[in-house]
């Protein structure tokens, strides 16, 4: 099975493309691949508990590791206590670590 790194920089309220990007991550996870979804920039906005955060909790429930860039969270005033269930704050360094491990990386 392959290992993937999805980097989501856009808010699902901004574009429907984001949901398709999540859907690709979900499909790969359901086929037993290892998938991390790293949220950055406005991509962290659905990590705050909201109507769109269910998209992320569904990914977590299906085995996707969902991480939110701590810097982007601070920029937007989102405390980690407000994160949706299963979404974890993380350093951008995770992206470097996973690239170095050879993960297949996709940016949206």
């Amino acid at each position, binding site marked *: 099975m392959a290992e993937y790194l999805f*980097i989501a920089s856009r808010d699902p309220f901004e574009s429907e493309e984001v949901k398709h990007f999540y859907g690709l991550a979900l499909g790969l996870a359901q086929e037993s691949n290892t998938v991390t979804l790293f949220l950055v920039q406005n991509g962290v906005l659905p990590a705050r508990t909201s109507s769109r955060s269910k998209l992320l909790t569904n990914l977590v429930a299906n085995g996707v590791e969902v991480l939110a860039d701590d810097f982007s969270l601070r920029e937007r005033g989102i405390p980690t206590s407000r994160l949706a269930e299963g979404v974890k704050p993380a350093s951008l*360094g995770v992206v*470097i*670590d996973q690239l*170095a491990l050879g993960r297949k990386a996709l*940016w949206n």
Partner: protein
Amino acid sequence: MPQQKTLTFSITDPPYENARSTTALRLISLAIERGYDVNVFAYEGAVALPFAKQAPHANAVHQRDAAEENHPNPKDWIAAVLAEAATRGRKLDWVNCGLCADERGVSESIPGTRRGSPADLLKFVEESHNTLVIPTK
């Protein structure tokens, strides 16, 4: 690290437009801090990121002079990561797509960057441990 690794980043956004440029520079900086060699292929509008004639400016609306405004210019951030790479003994090979730069009149880039073509990106990809393409919207 048992073996020196190289990471490649392909970027496309012009300066002063999108947080993707800032995130890309954060990633490049982190990779260097963590001991990796880094290749950057700047394509399309991203060739203006290291443009040497970027200049700080005053802000008449806020009644601040250029020094008070302290306007950030990406060429300075790029110079900083180039200096950081040199200090750490790491390679940072920044290539601007030459035709893209000519089209935009931004061929004068800061020292430490060089002119190239998409063929350099192919070479980077082939020689790197991994590549991250950061597309514009």
